[in-house]
């Protein structure tokens, strides 16, 4: 952050970014539903260079028992990066960063999931980052939400997510790894599209008040684009006619 020196041209004179995108364009997103047989619900997302698997179990018994809540169910999220997900081997033990992301993703999903229906149970969400390319938390949140819907867990709304940020003094949508490293700001947003509510908002970098507002608007536009892809992925599994098992 803070504009580290690099040779990469983040934005050329035609307004084209380092990976050939326009400023308000997301990377290519593909989602597949129901990829894991043993999980109650699952999803696989490719968000540009990010490749993430999400598996959902539950509602099921809580172990250890003392974690269970007699009034409501609990949601547990584990975000984990594979040792081979980045160019330099990553220690597979959960790092401080992974523990934090697990926490913010849990809190981003909690407003959507109707946990009160399942007292004394847990819903477990496992997110495995197979390949990372900047913006994994957004991609992981998108996959988690689709996997929860696939598991048939009651939700008030889907959660879709996309980042916005600032690089080369310009607001950009869907910050990639290079822009994250050399850019000026990165703001991941989680959004419930039918309620119009933000469930995840982080900001790493510096923005003026005006830029901040514009950045949120831009990010929400990205979230809505991702939401359409999430819907299509679920429709393809459940509503396409005939057998496709």
């Amino acid at each position, binding site marked *: 952050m803070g504009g580290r020196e690099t040779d990469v041209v983040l934005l050329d004179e035609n307004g084209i970014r380092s990976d050939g995108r326009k400023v308000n364009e997301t990377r290519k997103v593909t989602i597949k539903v129901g990829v894991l047989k043993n999980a*109650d*619900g699952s999803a696989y997302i490719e968000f540009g260079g990010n490749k993430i698997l999400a598996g959902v179990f*539950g*509602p*099921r018994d809580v172990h250890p028992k003392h974690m269970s809540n007699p009034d409501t169910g609990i949601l547990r999220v584990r975000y984990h990066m594979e040792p081979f997900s980045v160019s330099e081997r990553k220690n597979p033990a959960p790092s401080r960063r992974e523990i934090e992301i697990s926490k913010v993703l849990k809190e981003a999903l909690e407003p*959507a999931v*109707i946990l009160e229906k*399942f007292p*004394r*149970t847990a819903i477990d969400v496992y997110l495995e980052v197979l390949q990372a390319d900047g913006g994994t938390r957004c991609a992981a949140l998108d996959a988690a939400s689709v996997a929860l*819907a*696939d*598991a*048939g*867990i*009651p*939700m*008030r*709304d*889907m959660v879709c997510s996309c980042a916005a940020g600032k690089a080369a003094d310009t607001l950009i949508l869907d910050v990639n790894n290079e822009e994250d490293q050399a850019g000026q700001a990165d703001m991941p947003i989680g959004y*419930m*599209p*039918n*309620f119009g509510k933000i469930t995840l908002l982080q900001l790493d970098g510096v923005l003026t008040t005006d830029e901040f507002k514009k950045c949120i608007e831009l990010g929400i536009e990205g979230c809505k684009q991702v939401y359409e892809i999430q*819907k299509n992925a*679920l*429709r393809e599994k*459940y*509503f*396409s*006619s*005939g*057998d*496709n*098992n």
Partner: protein
Amino acid sequence: MNENQFVLPGDVIVTGDYRPEQNVILEGNRLMSTATGFSEIKDDLVTVTPLTGLYTPKTDDLVIGKIVSHNALSWEVDINSYYSGILTASDIFGKDYSPSRDDLSLKLKTGDIILARIANVNSRDPLITITGENLGKIDSGELIKISPTKIPRLTGSVIQTIEASTNATITVGQNGLIILKCDNSTGLKKSIASIKMIGMAQYDANLEEKIQRFLDENN
């Protein structure tokens, strides 16, 4: 607004003066789905039949369960849901049940399969009962498991179709477990295959015809 439609969590089914039922929430004047499924509007009631998910116990449902364990007062029964079913000892031994005199393991052992009815779901764990006609321990038959969300597709007429062409007797538990009994092995194989076909099929309006054709083909 289309009356029956496929919906995803968060989708607004209809707005206005309606009442939310199963898998629907009311948000302002919008009725939103909470499940992936098929929405239906009957009079002013809006429901969504889910296409995925675990079995949610409902009072008076017939379920097939497996005895997991027992303590001094009750059996714990796996009913393929997120809660275990509780079968109280007094359900079998009567009101004068005494833990010192009667031995639960003599009546039902761990691993036994029972056909039961959900008696009450308002308690901690759903209470089940085996007092009633045809309820109780199942001694023979083939046990098949399909997704509980596919059970509504096994309507009376579909079951009759299969039973008529294979001579099998089919007992359907609302929790996704099915017991098949048949004297001849070809009929048994065929009925298992047709039930599994229903378990695998996506939403399909012509399912009954397909099953009929499948049964005819193999005659």
